[in-house]
């Protein structure tokens, strides 16, 4: 089964912030076409009046008292940072 024409892989990869190689684009478009072809069968089902399920066992209104709790110390939280300086994460310039 070929990819549905409306799966614009460049657009989706941009939304997902992933750079794909031309080979990946061709391969994923075909493979996802197969998966979407399988998913098409969901259109056969009448879902009129059916409520959506977001969780297998829904729980509503989970409140916690607004009491400050100790978090990770800064140096521990930064231990896995790719680049850091002065207790901050270093990134390329964001605003010109």
């Amino acid at each position, binding site marked *: 089964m070929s990819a549905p024409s409306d*799966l614009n*892989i460049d*657009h*989706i*990869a941009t*939304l*997902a*912030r*992933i*750079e*794909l190689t031309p080979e*990946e684009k061709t*391969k*994923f478009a075909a*493979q*996802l076409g*197969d*998966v*979407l072809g*399988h*998913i098409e*069968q*969901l*259109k056969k*089902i009448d*879902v009129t009046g*059916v*409520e*959506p*399920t*977001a*969780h*297998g*066992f829904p*729980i509503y209104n*989970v409140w*916690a008292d607004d009491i400050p709790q100790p978090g*990770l110390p800064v140096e*521990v*939280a930064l*231990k*896995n*940072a*790719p*680049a850091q300086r002065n207790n901050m*994460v270093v*990134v*390329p*310039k*964001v605003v010109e």
Partner: protein
Amino acid sequence: MSSELIYQPISQLAEQLASTKISSVELTQAVIARTKAVDSQVKAFNSFDEADALAQARASDERRAAGQARGPLDGIPIGLKDVIAVEGQPLTASSKMLANFVSPYDATVTKKLKNAGAVCWGRLNLDEFAMGSSTENSAFHTTSNPYDLECVPGGSSGGSAAALAAGEAIATLGSDTGGSIRQPAALCNVVGLKPTYGLVSRYGLIAFASSLDQIGPFTRTVEDAAITLGVIAGHDPLDSTSFKADIPDYRAELSKRKGPWKLGIPKEYFGEGLDPEVAAAVEAAIDFYKKQGCEIKPVSLPHTEYGVGVYYIIATAECSSNLSRYDGVRYGHRTANPKDINELYFKSRAEGFGAEVKRRIILGTYVLSSGYYDAYYLRAQKVRTLIRQDFLKAYEEVDAILTPTTPTPAFKKGEKAANPLAMYLSDIYTIGVNLAGLPGLSIPCGFSKSGLPIGLQLIGQPFKEADLLAIAHTYDRAHDWASRHPNL
């Protein structure tokens, strides 16, 4: 001596530890020695920390000597899937993205295991970010099935299942989003339990699909599953989807709940694609329950065929959102010398994620994208409701549902790797349980002629793990499939 120790269940080892017939150090050394002897073949581990494990074991022995032993898990080496955080240990999700990540804190389940005195042992391999059914998507290596090294151990918790089957741990933890505990348990001849959604805290579990993910144990016996679940279950304020359920003494309940039960057989799970040897093994299990006086009733789960489609919309949508955190900024892989912040995002993610993770992020992004949300995501959530209602309707007539865990025994490495849809369809019997939030358990029920394990799946009612475990225990104590160990 050591080969005897490594294949004993927790229930027996705990007695020997209690009577100081053995020490935790001896037991842990036996597990370490076994791992060193066989893991070059099995490749269940991403890494292990021998000194750390022995230090935990010594602490356990000292507690016991001081009369402060903490219960049946004290001193027992338990392996953890490499998506469950252990403070100071690597946490990789078998991804290049997190290849150098060291966890700054313990997951709630890790904390509970440590509080119970367990020896947290090793980081177990998986499909990258728990996405897959074979461990072939691990960025590091593919784990082998201990019963046939040419075959996959199942996935995504393939390392957890294979390590236990090979005697490299006494029990392990995994996570199950669409079958990732039950399917590898079936393929590796061990017990695997996926608890009700909300029973076990997900805090410190690397998120894949948050409305489906659940942590659970792999064990040699159902009794061991009951012991381990009793330790890891319970409400956790750090997980807002954690449920305030009463946690019974699951182990004590095993012998109190004697049945006979009403067991439902859904015809949709016994159709096309079911391997005849698997069907025969499951039929034999059904006959066993009949002889125990259980009532076997046909039930229908009419939306079963839509499960895989619903799952691959919901799971990929949730993963595309959850994995947006891996952007190369605060932790994880960062591309070298990005020219601006956008290149940092695009290239870090391109370099850090493997093919299956990218595929799922792309699919999930697509089904959530403007113009497609109603057609895919919303519709899938509605069909999810119908799938859940199918189960709840069946439970008006039966206590539990009995099915095969997988359509076939373990498949060969490489057999499905090039065809994602074929791989996805191998989860057809396990996915419904996650979509409906139910507890499900796989238990060994036989072997194929070629010597590959076969699993029986029992699906229970929400938060009625005590019943589910008791039903499984009835079968388990009358059979000894688990005693057939792999030749390694």
